């Protein structure tokens, strides 16, 4: 709570800074913008923003310093005093400097740039922190469990009393198998849908169909999971698995893959549609002008021109498929298994991360720490896919510009 109060006081002080800065500017200039270097509101903003940023800066530095020196809690008063002192100092300095020639506008623009830099670095720093914390825990895990058995072990049998087999290959296999089936569904359907929407559909149909398709992307994956559990799973089992003698499980790789594929269709089609639309009309005209039909034009000019972007879209879809959890839990089951039969229950890396960390955990035994090793493996795989997608898209993007 004191933190919240401190923040509120800081905000109030900044607002006060704006008002007083503006007032002083008005009195200095006599209410006319023309005699000042900067417009009057800039003087207000300058004081307000400087107060806020200085307070925030002191607060963060003081909090970090306290944490580093290992001072216990209860020193909130010192922190608050320091913060407010910093804010007031900035207030005083900027307020005192207001005069006709003062370049408040430049100051405001610098501070806005600082805010933008802060916003973008928070995302990056968080990612780095995330990776570091996972690496740290994963290192603990590999201190207790040989990495060769983890990466090349074919048996996954965690046992909370110790002495578990924690080979990740069955999980990785399940992940790749489910993702593969999902992409087999999503890529052709999504791509054809995109081609239809971008090249053939009239403007009216397009105006209706495209948002409709994108609604699919907004459905929570747990709903897809329910669909897999109560509809697709039993149907696949009764129609294919049992008559073909391939198993009696309603949870299967095929179920999860199929439903996940449906989930990915709007993803693939929406991205590909944008990319196909970005191919210049001049390309199509050039092809028509040579006597090519519409489908020849699409096949030989539009798709090749859009291909890098489409590949990028597919790789992005693949990394989503690999990271998907809910549909797999409900559709594919939880049995770690190395099998080619698509109608058998299998499981994926993400599902096992969840199951290793739910319940009472002490983050000391290899059975729980393995989740971090799995997490970092998954992170590396999807990161690799995303980087590959970005490289492909960037390398070939300029070809038709």
């Amino acid at each position, binding site marked *: 709570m004191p933190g919240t109060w401190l923040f509120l006081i800081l905000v109030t002080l900044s607002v006060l800074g704006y008002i007083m800065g503006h007032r002083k500017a008005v009195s200095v200039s006599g209410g006319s913008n023309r005699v000042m270097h900067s417009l009057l509101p800039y003087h207000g903003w300058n004081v307000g923003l400087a107060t806020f940023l200085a307070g925030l800066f002191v607060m963060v530095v003081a909090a970090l310093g306290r944490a580093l020196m290992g001072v216990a809690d209860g020193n909130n008063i010192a922190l608050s005093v320091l913060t407010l002192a910093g804010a007031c100092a900035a207030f005083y300095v900027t307020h005192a400097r207001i005069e006709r020639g003062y370049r408040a506008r430049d100051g405001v623009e610098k501070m806005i740039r600082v805010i933008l830099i802060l916003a973008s670095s928070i995302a990056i720093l968080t990612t780095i922190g995330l990776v570091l914390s996972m690496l740290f825990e994963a290192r603990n895990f590999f201190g207790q469990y040989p990495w060769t058995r983890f990466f090349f072990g074919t048996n996954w049998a965690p046992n909370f009393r110790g002495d578990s087999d924690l080979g990740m290959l069955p999980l990785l296999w399940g992940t790749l198998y489910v993702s593969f089936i999902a992409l087999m569904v999503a890529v052709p359907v999504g791509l054809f849908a995109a081609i239809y929407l971008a090249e053939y559909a009239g403007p009216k149909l397009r105006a209706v169909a495209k948002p409709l398709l994108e609604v699919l992307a907004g459905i929570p994956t747990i709903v897809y999971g329910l669909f897999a559990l109560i509809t697709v799973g039993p149907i696949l089992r009764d129609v294919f698995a049992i008559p073909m003698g391939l198993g009696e499980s309603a949870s299967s790789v095929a179920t999860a893959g199929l439903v996940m594929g449906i989930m990915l269709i709007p993803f693939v089609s929406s991205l590909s549609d944008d990319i196909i639309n970005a191919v210049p009309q*001049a*390309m199509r*005209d050039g092809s028509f*002008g040579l*006597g*090519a039909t519409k489908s020849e034009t699409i096949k030989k000019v539009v798709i090749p021109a859009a291909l890098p972007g489409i590949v990028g879209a597919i790789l992005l879809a693949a990394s989503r498929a690999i990271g998907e959890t809910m549909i797999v839990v409900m559709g594919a089951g939880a049995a770690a298994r190395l099998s080619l039969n698509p109608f058998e229950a299998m499981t994926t890396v993400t599902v096992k991360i969840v199951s290793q960390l739910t319940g009472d955990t002490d983050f000391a035994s290899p059975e729980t720490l393995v989740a971090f090793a799995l997490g970092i493996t998954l992170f590396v795989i999807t990161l690799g896919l995303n980087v590959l997608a970005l490289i492909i898209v960037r390398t070939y993007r300029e070809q038709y510009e």
Partner: protein
Amino acid sequence: MNDMRIVERDVDTQAIKFDCENVQVYYGDNHAIKDVNVRIESNTVTAFIGPSGCGKSTFLRCLNRMNDTIDICRVEGKLSLDGENIYDRKVDPVQLRAKVGMVFQKPNPFPKSIYDNIAYGPRIHGLVDSKADLDMVVERSLRRGAIWDEVKDRLHAPGTGLSGGQQQRLCIARAVATEPEVLLMDEPCSALDPIATAQVEELIEELRTNFSVIIVTHSMQQAARVSQRTAFFHLGELVEFGKTGDIFTNPKDPRTESYITGRIG
């Protein structure tokens, strides 16, 4: 290349290629082309001139039915190529466009290699049976496009990596590769610098030996340099059509005179 140069020939005895009678074009409610009658001869360069928005590009695009791709566009009247009405139900616009090639205002090479750009048309229309034939067609087309010497060592480099003028000559070579009878050019030099323009104009003069060329241009000097026939369009009407020399030195219609002396447009 210069040995292919042909001295100015008498064009008066050429056969009629396009015969257009009472052509009307509408964009929705807008009457864009009004009552155009024109006869375009083979082995002749015909220039369409006129102020912006006068309908010259629209009329050009009627000649290979490129306007079909625009939903609200409607064409009436009789346009015949070698005596056959090209807007007849029996005519496949795709086949027509193979006979009436087109070069656009902005160079638009496909994002493929130079070789594949040229080979595109012949492959689609099945004009060649073997790789060796295709190689030959590609070389011949690039030579006709007056760009062979510049690209012969990098046929498999992307066509988009060429300079603007080279790209435009590549596009001309690409249009030539399908062996059209007529070549339509929609302001082919407007995106080019003077040197590239000169190269393309020289090329147009050479193309006349094999094709009938129709060129839309904003530059009256260009029309005077490259064409034997000139048509002047104004507000959707064909004001005057005749020998280029007559149009520029002795125009019959006062509007033509105003335009070429710079008073309208």
